[in-house]
């Protein structure tokens, strides 16, 4: 068999391990971890790895887990953690801190709906809740992509033109606990792809304090710098794609992945594995002569506005599917991209799969049919996947 049967969680842990080892000639690897379903198996595997010059620290909470990463990253170590749902919510303050301190922490999130009551299954509400925090956010659709994207995330985060933390997201159970054939690169390959981290102004012999008092003008400049770094992500990512392909022999997907979208009468836009299901629905519809197309948004932050606008050009009807709900508003992705379509195009928002319902091709075909038959866009539609 080409590759190993790995779960998404283990793919992430192995990716982090390889990346951590790759910094053994640098300042090493530090990870602060705390378990929560469904990301627990990732940190469990990580805790059992031997990483030269690596420290995996089990702490008493997610907030402290991120604090460990902040301290480690500030010292120049390559850092990683993983969490989900209310664990990410608990971590939130330090998530923001890591980004505002411009530290290249990488986090793997196993997307689980927020609670209480306690539901362990998938939706994107946990990481999208932190969309304004200043982290790069990447959403994956299969286990190979999880492993590969994790490696890319370190490259992106640590590039001097960026220096921002990065989130690699996979849906609970659908990816985190599902085993697929996954090619695991050699350490040698990862060493080539991820050179040792050389963090500017890292904590060294001189004692320093991280953070401090600021005034409005300084904050304005910091935020502008941060925004500019986000904007530079596109060009850096293209280089990362090229280098990844050169080292590993496969090319990471683009920030936006079209599928039979060029001539689509209805374009379905989504993130994560719902996009895989959408592609199956597209094939079914096309076989019946319906011109359905799909767009998968892989990079949520920075938001690929230009790429989406280009993909939307000429498309008359767009169905944006959110596996989340910004309560009081509608789907987050819909909110961010609805203005990018042609004037006069019909952009309708749909929310489905919240709390982990099994979204099937039939649901997407129903959505496409609704989008096809509407006179005009209306308020966002909340749909039940059932069970």
């Amino acid at each position, binding site marked *: *068999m*080409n*590759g*190993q*049967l790995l*779960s998404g969680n283990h793919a992430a842990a192995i990716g982090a391990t390889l990346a951590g080892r790759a910094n053994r000639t640098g300042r090493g690897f530090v990870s602060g971890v705390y378990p929560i379903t469904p990301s627990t198996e990732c940190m469990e595997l990580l805790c059992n790895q031997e990483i030269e010059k690596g420290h995996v620290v089990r702490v008493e909470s997610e907030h402290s887990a991120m604090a460990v990463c902040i301290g480690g990253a500030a010292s120049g170590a390559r850092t990683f953690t993983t969490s989900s749902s209310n664990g990410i919510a608990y971590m939130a303050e330090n998530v923001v801190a890591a980004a505002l301190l411009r530290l290249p922490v990488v986090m793997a999130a196993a997307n689980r709906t927020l609670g209480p*009551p306690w539901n*362990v*299954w998938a939706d994107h509400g946990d990481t999208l809740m932190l969309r304004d925090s200043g982290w790069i956010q990447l959403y994956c659709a*299969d286990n*190979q992509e999880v492993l590969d994207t994790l490696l890319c995330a370190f490259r992106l985060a640590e590039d001097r033109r960026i220096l921002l933390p990065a989130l690699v997201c996979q849906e609970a*159970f*659908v990816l985190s*606990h*599902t*085993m*697929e*054939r996954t*090619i695991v690169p050699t350490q040698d390959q990862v060493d080539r792809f991820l050179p040792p981290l050389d963090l500017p102004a890292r904590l060294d012999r001189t004692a320093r304090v991280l953070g401090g008092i600021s005034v409005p003008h300084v904050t304005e400049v910091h935020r502008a710098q941060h925004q500019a770094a986000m904007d530079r992500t596109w060009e850096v990512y293209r280089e990362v794609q090229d280098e990844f392909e050169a080292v590993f*022999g*496969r090319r990471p997907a683009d920030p936006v992945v079209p599928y039979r979208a060029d001539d689509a009468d209805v374009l379905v836009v989504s993130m994560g*594995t719902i996009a*895989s*299901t959408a*592609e*199956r629905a597209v094939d079914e519809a096309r076989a019946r002569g319906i011109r359905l197309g799909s767009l998968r948004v892989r990079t949520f932050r920075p938001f690929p506005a230009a790429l989406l606008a280009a993909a939307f050009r000429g498309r008359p009807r767009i169905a944006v599917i959110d596996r989340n709900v910004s309560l009081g508003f509608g789907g987050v992705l819909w909110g961010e991209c609805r203005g990018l379509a042609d004037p006069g195009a019909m952009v309708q928002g749909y929310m489905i799969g919240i709390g982990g319902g*099994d*979204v*099937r091709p039939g649901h997407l075909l129903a959505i496409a049919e609704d989008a096809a038959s509407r006179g005009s866009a209306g308020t966002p539609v909340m749909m*039940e*996947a*059932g*069970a």
Partner: protein
Amino acid sequence: MGVTESSRGALPAGIPLPLEVRVHGRGGQGGVTCAKLVATIYAEQGLHVQTFGDYGSERTGAPVRAFARVDTVPIRNRNKVYRPNHLIVLDAGLLAEDVLEGAEPGAVVLLNTARGLAPFADKHGHFRFAAVDATAIARRHGIGTSAVVIINTTLAGAYARAMGLPWEAVERAFAVQGLARDLPAAREAWDAVLVREADDGEETAARGASPPSKVIGIAEQVRDIPTPLQTGSWRTQMPLYRSHAAPCNAGCPAGNDVVGFVQALATGGVEAAARVLFRTQPLPSVCGRVCPAPCMSACNRGAYDGSVHIRGLERWIGDHVAPRPERPVPAATPRRVAVVGSGPAGLGAAFALATAGHRVVIYEGESCLGGVLRTGIPAYRLPEEVLDRDIARIVALGVEARTGTFLDAAAVAGLARSHDAVILAAGLPRLTGLEAPGVDLPGVLQGIRFLDDVKRGAAPRLSGAVIVVGGGNTAIDCARTALRLGASSVAIAYRRGRKEMPAIGPEIDEAVAEGVKLLLHRQPVRVGGEGRVQSLELAEVELGEPDASGRRRPVVTGRTSSVPCDALLLALGQSADLSIVPGLPNVFTAGDMATGDGTVAHALGSGRRVAAKVLAALAGEPEPVEERPSPEALVAPAHVRFSHFEVELPHAERHRGIPGQGLGFDEANLGLDGPSEASRCFSCGACTECDTCLLYCPEGVIHRIGRGYRIDEAFCKGCGMCVAECPRRAMEMVFEVSAR
């Protein structure tokens, strides 16, 4: 090098692609790994695979599912498996309608079952069925534990065979997953799996997924326990309320319901306790004073803070119960039974027969009823008026007593003709003598006769040194009586040691406390004196070779010494006189005459059982059999939850005075000062409705119903906490038998 398209390769023709496999199991059986193994088998053949589990917070035993998909191209299907081509069922007990949901006719079902293919043939004929007893195979190979056998690897072997996959693929998959040690079990299942093809023709519409359940508003989500999730399906064993035999009951030779009367005393008072006790015990005030109380030796509380003082409680009931005036209702067919002997066996038989409404006549040779209770037990142990009270209760039932009437064999035969039956309970009138020179000298008395004389007021004068020979209760009674009659010193000579003395332990202690000396390992070999007893020659006794019973035989040595002796009382044992037993079918023996067990309780039990035997024989029915519980069926100390009980030492009986303050014949033991000792009874094996089960149930599914409890089977998960916490083994877990 990307992920390339793979070909079907050597995959058997009958396997469709894309393939969808669904596994149904119980948490802990390894269903998720089973699906992973199946996926690995295909992955090792170059195919794309995907596998994942479907479960939430279910624990061991709860139904869980897992899926696997196989295809020649990368799999984009992220949904659960709704239309399985292959179904693997790890536990045939799960084989209900929803397990087969979505399976098309011709789908393959692989079942872990011990019952082979036959039971499933008619119901699921349109499926291709495979069956193997993976549990037995895995258990033999020691995979998992004997309580939780893990069958996933075994079943994977059967799966591969049933699907026509090569064994090499199984070997490779196991090696890749690090499970090579389970290959022998998988191979055995490979060899053992039976396959039955689908029936032709019958098309049944495949059922789709059931519609989603309605969601109610969050404010309406408030639910009291139990929740709507019917977790009863998680259960493989079930708690039941079941009584178990208490060791006190099992140990009582009279067959008293000890737990019953003690609990009745604790919760209902003297009258309630008496109603239970009088079913089997007509002499509570007697036994409450003289019984060796095997119930107390067996009492489980003895392993905690001290046995319940059951004998004292029995005495309390006998001493405080109100007189029972009513006569019993005559039986439908009243029998006429003659009872010969009014000791405890005869009284017990008479009581049982009279209570059942039959006509009883007691013949007694002495002038008063009571037998050895009257003649052989000293008044300081059993006052006359106490004995009279117990006997009067029996006579008040309408029993006719003819005292002063000794009977010989001819007389007994005559009774057998004039009555429906005769019960001979004449005790042990033959007294064992001493073989030694000088035993005919005046001053050598049989102990039993001595005690009788004392009770009739014809006590001989005793002074000086009195020696009693023997180690049983009669010897103790003689010794303590001799003290009370003025002997200046009293000693008991016994040929074995203290431990071997058959007398009741506390009685020996009381004798020693009163000043009786024990001359152990001593045997009288010569009685000396001129005209009367003046001395006794005692030989030392050693333990020699073991006899047939395994006890070392006492061997009389030649080392002797002489002690002064003014009176010698012999208490060497008694035997029956069977010459009065005619060989007639309606004549029965009871008590010591029949069994020689030697205690009042044995005699009472014997009398009651022989009475039942007599009535059955007269009615032409088989002899009633009293079930004796096996040792495993008894409640043992390990079954009692000591942590539920506060430490409370047993109440002690009060005793009159101390030695040296003038011993008299007034009752020495004044008994308990109240019945509160009864509340120390654990009630072993009998539910007391303490609510412990109800309180400890984590699901809140045990409810009171009138007297007793009901367990809600729709929700009980079979966790067993109620049974584990029951303080007294009044519950039991039983395995649920389903289609395994």
